């Protein structure tokens, strides 16, 4: 079966105090398996909303999302943990919902997240860095066809970022990626399709230079 995700005429409108906010306007996008999509956008351009729509965490106001591959939750996300559960309990839960044997993943997550004894402590006792490491380790532990990455630079210290890069961009480089960011950092070297998100409109460019040229003049 062909693997892809397709957005058809997707609009997302948020009600605000005075009227409505058009977060996404008429987005049409087909993500094929193996695409490495980079989306540049300023703060408030709708980047996170777009990532959430692709993941399915948010439903579009109008339009359709057709998913024909296994898409991750938005990475670099730190929520979704039950504070009173331990890191291990959260690992078990995530593995169970995705139908993965958690016993196989324990050593990887423990090693990657570097939580030490805290792995067996409630998540509410974690620092924000520890939470982020756990979140990232869990999302890498589950094998997805498509990884959604929201502002990758935001997670962890430099050493941890390097390890994330190895795990994601080297070991899983044949997978599909959608990266949204306000900086060209990873998009330039890693991606093969380039977009700019501007006030809810998604514009595709032939190469990075054209996209960057347009984006940097905004």
């Amino acid at each position, binding site marked *: 079966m062909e693997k892809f995700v397709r957005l058809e005429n997707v609009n997302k409108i948020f009600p605000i105090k005075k009227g409505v906010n058009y977060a996404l306007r008429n987005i049409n996008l087909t993500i094929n398996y193996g695409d490495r999509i980079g989306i540049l956008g300023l703060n408030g351009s709708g980047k996170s909303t777009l990532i*959430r729509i692709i993941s399915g*965490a948010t439903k579009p106001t109008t339009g359709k999302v057709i998913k024909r591959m296994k898409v991750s939750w938005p990475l670099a996300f730190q*929520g979704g943990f*039950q504070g009173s*559960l331990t890191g291990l309990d959260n690992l078990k839960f995530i593995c*169970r*919902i*995705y139908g993965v044997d958690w016993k196989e993943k324990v050593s990887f997550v423990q090693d990657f997240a570097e939580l030490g004894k805290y792995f067996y402590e409630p998540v509410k006792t974690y620092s924000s860095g520890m939470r982020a490491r756990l979140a990232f380790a869990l999302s890498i532990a589950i094998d997805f066809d498509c990884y959604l990455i929201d502002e990758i630079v935001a997670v962890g210290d430099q050493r941890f970022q390097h390890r994330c890069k190895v795990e994601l961009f080297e070991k899983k480089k044949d997978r599909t990626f959608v990266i949204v960011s306000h900086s060209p950092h990873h998009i330039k070297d890693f991606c093969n399709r380039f977009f700019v998100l501007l006030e809810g409109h998604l514009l595709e460019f032939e190469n990075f230079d054209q996209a960057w040229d347009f984006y940097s003049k905004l």
Partner: protein
Amino acid sequence: MVRVIQALVMRELITRYGRKNIGFLWAFFEPAFFAFLVTIVWTFVRMHERSTFPITAFIYIGYSNGLLWRYTITQCFHAISANQGLLYHSIVKPVDLVISRWLLEFLSVTGGAIALGLLFGGFGYVPIPYDFSYLLLGWILMAWFGLAMGLIFAALSILSEVVEHFIQAFLYIFWILSGSLFAAEFLPPNVREYFLYLPTLHIAEIVRYGLLGPIMNYYYDISYPVFFNLIALSVGFFLLRIAERKIEVE
């Protein structure tokens, strides 16, 4: 979907039993306490000398059965807001959150009822069920009613901000009127006619007949709660679908 619900149930089991709120014990102690209280009053006014009515068993079965919807509504009403972060995983749907909470309440209320029934039975206050099939039928019908209400209230928690302020009062009034604590026979015929619009009264009559047998006149029609539940369940699924679009994950 089954996988997700399993995972959610196991997860809630840890979080709940880790805290003080132990559903199973409540489902045991609440009807136990109430049945005990009523029995004491009953004895105090010397009703037991004038009547052979099995008051303890009557209260026990109606009360336990009614908890199937009462606890479920409360739990399901908060199912989505309490677990909103999980919706980040698109594989977890709001309906899974509601169903897993309903399932947990069903298990703990049923467990509590069995334990209490055995205890009361051991002391001779609760008889051996007259007809197990009716007891089971009434139990299933009430669980089904609870699921339908759970879905509707979970959807309402998203769709309306007003419901939150009224839910406690509503539950309280409906709990008294639902028919779990009185028999249709106790009512004057012209009032009874109206009360029989409540599916919960029919169901309570069915479980009471199943436990106590023909010691009084029962008023029920099996098809009415079935019909009501079918419609309520469809409404619940429909409302939750509408509500789903309004849920914003932080």
